[in-house]
C-alpha cells in the first residue's frame, strides 16, 4: 500500500532533545517506506509547528502523518485538529511517545534515541493501515443526575440548577449534608460548618430545578453520554413527606427512644427508630429505620408514633419504588468513609474508653452534639492531657499508602478547640505537617503559639500503663522514644473509599484507582471526567480532599456537565468495537467483559451485538473474543501487529 507519510519529530524544547537525538530520528525516518518527508522541530504543538504539517500536507500531498513527541493523551487532539484543518481525516495520524517513554525515563542518550527510532518506526508502519473514521455527534438530554448529597453534590447541583437546567439529586441517607454536616468548625477560618452548609442545603430544597431523592440509590445506568437511562430505587421512609412537618413528636413518642446509636453522632448519642437525622436535616422530615422499628421488624408495637403524629404522616404501607430518569450527564459525588481504627489494636480504639476518632471529636465539640459542645471524657470529667494522632490508616504501608490530605489541618483545628474549651495540654503526633492551603500555614502557626506540643513522630501505640492511657512514639526530632500519659486520644483517621464503591463503579462503568477511589481521566488536566464520557467526579469519591477543594471540584464537574447541556450535543469517539456476524458463533464469552454494558445478545441471530454509542473502544471484548469476530476500529489486529513489527525490526 503506497501512502505519503510525513514524520515530525518534536524537541519539546529540551524535554526531548536533551536526551534524544531528534535529528537522527528524522534522518532515519526519511529512509523508511512511504515516508516522503521527515522533519524535526523545536515545538511541534506550537502554531508554527502545526503550520509546518499543514504546509507539507498540501505541498507533498501527505496522506498520513506521524508525530513523534509527547503522550497522545496530551496532544493527539491537537494534531488531529491540525490534520482536519488541512483536509485530512484526523485519525490518519499516529503519535510516537518519545518523551514519557524515552527522554524522561532515560539518561542514556544512545539507548533513548534508539528506542525513539523504534517507536517512530512502529508508528509509521501502523499509520499506513489507518482508516479515516468520523466522530459522531449525539444530542444531549438537558437534565443532570447528581449522586450523593454531600457538599460536593450540593455544590454541583446548585450550580447547574442556578444555570437553569434540571437536576436530580440522589442521596442514600434520609438527609443531604454528608460528612460536612457532622463537623463542628472548619479550618482555617473556624466558620461553623453548619452555618455555611445549611443555607446551601436549604437552597437545594427550595430550588425549583432540583428534584431531590433521599433514602434512594441508583441501581442501574444504561445508555451513553447525553442519553443515560437511570433507575433509582427509592426506599420507603414510612413517613408521608408531604404531611410531615418535622416537628419531632413521633421521635419523642417512639418506644425505642434513646436506644439506637445515632449514625450522625457517630455512636456517641442515641436516637429513636423514627427520627430526624439532625436538626438542620434537609428535607426536615422524619424517617423510620426499618432495621430497628419494632413494628416493621416484628409486627408488634403499640405504634405510639402514629398516635403522636397529628398530621397522620406515619405510613407503614409505603413500599420501595423504582423511579426511571433520563439524563444527559451524571456527576458522582458519593464521598468517602472513615477508616475504622479498630482493625489495628495498637491504637486501642474500642479497647479503651477515651480513645475516639476525629469524627467523634467533631461531634463532642459541636454545640448541638452529645455533650453540648463540652470536651469531656467518658466519665463526664474534663481531660487534662489530650493526644491527637495523625495519619491513622493513611501513609501507612499496612493500610493505605496515600495521604488523606485533611488530617493535618483538622488535627491542628482539634488542638485549637481543645485549648479553647479546656485547660488541657495537647500533644500532636505527626509524621510531617502538611498545611499547604490558603491561610493554612498561618493557622498552624497560630495554634503553635497557643502552646500545643507538636511531636514529630507517628503515634505508634496507645496502651495503658499503670491505669493511665499512654501514647508511645518515637520523637524523630529529638531522636528519643517517648511515652506520654494522656487521658484522651483522638485518632485522626484516614478517608477511605466507600465500602460500596466497587458496586458503584460497576453500575456507572467508571474505573477505580489502586487506592479504591474513582479514577479520573487525567490526574492533572482532567480530574473531573472519567473514562466513561458524560460521567463526572466531584469531591472525595475521586480522592481525599478538603472542603475548599471539594467545592471547587463540585463546580468544575457542574461546568463539565453544563458545557454539553449548553451546546445540546457532544461528539463521541469513533473508536469502537464491532461484531462480525458471519464469524460470531454466539459463545457468549464477551458478554460479561464489557465494563460499559455495550454488549447484548441477539437471541434470534444467536450473535453478540455491540451498541456503538455506548462502546468506549477499550478493546477488552476484542481481546476476549475467542473466534476473532470482534474488531476494535483504530486498534485492529493488523494495525497493532504492524506497529509491533515496526518497533521490533532492526535498523
Amino acid at each position: 500500500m503506497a501512502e505519503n507519510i510525513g514524520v515530525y519529530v518534536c524537541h519539546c524544547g529540551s524535554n526531548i532533545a536533551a536526551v534524544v537525538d531528534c535529528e537522527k530520528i528524522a534522518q532515519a525516518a526519511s529512509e523508511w517506506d512511504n515516508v516522503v518527508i521527515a522533519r524535526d522541530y523545536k515545538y511541534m504543538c506550537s502554531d508554527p509547528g502545526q503550520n509546518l504539517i499543514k504546509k507539507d500536507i498540501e505541498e507533498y500531498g501527505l496522506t498520513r502523518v506521524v508525530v513523534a513527541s509527547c503522550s497522545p493523551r496530551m496532544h493527539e487532539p491537537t494534531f488531529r485538529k491540525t490534520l482536519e484543518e488541512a483536509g485530512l481525516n484526523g485519525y490518519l495520524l499516529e503519535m510516537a511517545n518519545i518523551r514519557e517513554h524515552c527522554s524522561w525515563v532515560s539518561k542514556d542518550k544512545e539507548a533513548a534515541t534508539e528506542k525513539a527510532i523504534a517507536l517512530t518506526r512502529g508508528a509509521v508502519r501502523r499509520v499506513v493501515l489507518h482508516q479515516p473514521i468520523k466522530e459522531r455527534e449525539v444530542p444531549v438530554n438537558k437534565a443532570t443526575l447528581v449522586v450523593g448529597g454531600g457538599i460536593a453534590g450540593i455544590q454541583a447541583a446548585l450550580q447547574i440548577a442556578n444555570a437553569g437546567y434540571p437536576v436530580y439529586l440522589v442521596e442514600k441517607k434520609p438527609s443531604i449534608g454528608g460528612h460536612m454536616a457532622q463537623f463542628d468548625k472548619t479550618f482555617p477560618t473556624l466558620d461553623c460548618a453548619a452555618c455555611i452548609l445549611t443555607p446551601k442545603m436549604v437552597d437545594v430544597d427550595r430550588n425549583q430545578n432540583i428534584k431531590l431523592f433521599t433514602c434512594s440509590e441508583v441501581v442501574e445506568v444504561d445508555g451513553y453520554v447525553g442519553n443515560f437511562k437511570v433507575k433509582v430505587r427509592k426506599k420507603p421512609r414510612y413517613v408521608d413527606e408531604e404531611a410531615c412537618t418535622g416537628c419531632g413528636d413521633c421521635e419523642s413518642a417512639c418506644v425505642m427512644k434513646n436506644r439506637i446509636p445515632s449514625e450522625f453522632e457517630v455512636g456517641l448519642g442515641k436516637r429513636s427508630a423514627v427520627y430526624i437525622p439532625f436538626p438542620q436535616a434537609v428535607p426536615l422530615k422524619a424517617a423510620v429505620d426499618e432495621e430497628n422499628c419494632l413494628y416493621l421488624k416484628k409486627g408488634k408495637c403499640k405504634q405510639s408514633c402514629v398516635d403522636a403524629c397529628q398530621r397522620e404522616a406515619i405510613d407503614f404501607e409505603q413500599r420501595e419504588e423504582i423511579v426511571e430518569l433520563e439524563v444527559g450527564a451524571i456527576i458522582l459525588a458519593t464521598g468517602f468513609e472513615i477508616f475504622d481504627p479498630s482493625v489495628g489494636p495498637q491504637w486501642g480504639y474500642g479497647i479503651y474508653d477515651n480513645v475516639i476518632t476525629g469524627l467523634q471529636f467533631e461531634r463532642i465539640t459541636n454545640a448541638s452534639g452529645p455533650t453540648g459542645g463540652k470536651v469531656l471524657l467518658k466519665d463526664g470529667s474534663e481531660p487534662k492531657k489530650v493526644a491527637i494522632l495523625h495519619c491513622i490508616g493513611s501513609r501507612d504501608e499496612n493500610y493505605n499508602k496515600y495521604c488523606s490530605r485533611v488530617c493535618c489541618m483538622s488535627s491542628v483545628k482539634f488542638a485549637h478547640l481543645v485549648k479553647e474549651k479546656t485547660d488541657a495540654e495537647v500533644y500532636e503526633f505527626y509524621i510531617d505537617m502538611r498545611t499547604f492551603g490558603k491561610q493554612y500555614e498561618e493557622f498552624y502557626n497560630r495554634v503553635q503559639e497557643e502552646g500545643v506540643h507538636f511531636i514529630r513522630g507517628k503515634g505508634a501505640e496507645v496502651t495503658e500503663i499503670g491505669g493511665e492511657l499512654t501514647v508511645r512514639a518515637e520523637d524523630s526530632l529529638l531522636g528519643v522514644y517517648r511515652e506520654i500519659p494522656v487521658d484522651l486520644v483522638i485518632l485522626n483517621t484516614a478517608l477511605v473509599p466507600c465500602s460500596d464503591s466497587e458496586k458503584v463503579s460497576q453500575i456507572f462503568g467508571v474505573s477505580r484507582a489502586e487506592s479504591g477511589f474513582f479514577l479520573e481521566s487525567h490526574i492533572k488536566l482532567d480530574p473531573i471526567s472519567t473514562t466513561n464520557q458524560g460521567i463526572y467526579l466531584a469531591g472525595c469519591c475521586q480522592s481525599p480532599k478538603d472542603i475548599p477543594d471539594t467545592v471547587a471540584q463540585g463546580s468544575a464537574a457542574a461546568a463539565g456537565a453544563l458545557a454539553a447541556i449548553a451546546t445540546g450535543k457532544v461528539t463521541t469517539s469513533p473508536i469502537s468495537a464491532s461484531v462480525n456476524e458471519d464469524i460470531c458463533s454466539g459463545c457468549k464469552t464477551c458478554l460479561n467483559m464489557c465494563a460499559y454494558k455495550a454488549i447484548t445478545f441477539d437471541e434470534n441471530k444467536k450473535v453478540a451485538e455491540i451498541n456503538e454509542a455506548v462502546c468506549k473502544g477499550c478493546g477488552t471484548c476484542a481481546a476476549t473474543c475467542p473466534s476473532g469476530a470482534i474488531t476494535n476500529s483504530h486498534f485492529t489486529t493488523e494495525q497493532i501487529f504492524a506497529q509491533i513489527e515496526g518497533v521490533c525490526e532492526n535498523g
Partner: protein
Amino acid sequence: MSKLKLAVYWTAACGGCDVAILDINERILQVDEAAEIVFWPLAADPKYDDVKNMPDDAIDVCLLHGAIRNSENEEMARVLRQKSKVMIAFGSCSAFGGIPGLANFFDKKEIFERVYRESESTAGKAGVYPSPAVIVPEGELTIPEFYDTVLTLDQVVEVDYYVPGCPPAVDTIWTALEAIITGELPLRGTVIAGVKTLCDECSRKKEEKKITEIKRPMEVEIDPERCLLEQGIVCCGPATRGGCGARCTSANMPCRGCYGPTDHSIDQGAKLVSAIASIIDSKDPEEIKKITHLLSDPAGTFYRFSLPGSMLRRKRKEDVS
C-alpha cells in the same frame, strides 16, 4: 475425460487421516470412479522413486497429512509439491502442526535425552543418539535428520487448501473430495471447514460464562445439556473452527481444538488463554491463581493441535536473546 490423478501421503503423522479417508465408506467408490490413486503408501506399495520419476504436475491433487518433523518429511513434501497441481494440507498435523507439534515445547536435545537416555523403556546402551550418518563395518548408514522444530506443511512448501481435523470429520473430507472431483474448488488458501467456531454448531445451552472452578471431565458428572465451559470444563470450542459437527461435545466430551483457529484469529492458544481468563469469576488475585492452577497442562491444552502454526510456534530457545 481422463481420471483425476490423486496422491495421499503421510509425513509425521499417526495414520489416522488415512483411515479417515476410508471412513467415507461406500462413497470411496465415487472417488475411485473419478480418480486414479497414483501414490498412497498406506493403501498401495509405492516407492519414493515412483513419485520422483513422475513429470512435474503429474498429480492433480495431493492430500498430504502429517507435520514436518525430519528431513525426509521435508524432502517428500517438496517432491510432492513439484509433482502436484494442487497441494492440500490434510489434517491438523500438516495444517497447524498437530499432536507432533507439541514437541515444540521442547527441543531436539531434550527429546533425545528423554527418549534415548532417561526413558524407563530405553533398552541397550543409554545415551546413544540417532545420527544422520553412521559408519558400520558394511559401510555408511544414513537416516533422516531429526529437526529441532516441528514445522507445518505451509512452512515448507506452498499449500493450496487446508482440511483440518484430527482426523478430519467424514463430512469435511467429503466436502473436500467432492470439490476436487467436481473441480469446484474454492478460493486458494481456503480452509475447507466451517467459518464460525464450534459453539455455533454445538447444541448445548449457553447461559452465562462465569466459572469459579476448573474441572477435568472425569472429575464430574457432566450435564449433557449445558455448555461445558460453563460447567468449568475447559472446552476449546469458542476458539476452534467448526465444521466437525460438534462430534466431541455431542459425545459429552469437551472440544480439544483440532480444527484450529478461525480465519480471524492468529493464535488459537492465545485466544483460549484470554477466553478462559475472561470467564473466571473473581477479582481476587489469590483466588484467580487458585482457579487457574486447577488447569493441568495449560500450554498443552490450549495449543494441543496448533503450536507450530501459531504465532508462538515453539518454546523460546534459551541461547537466543
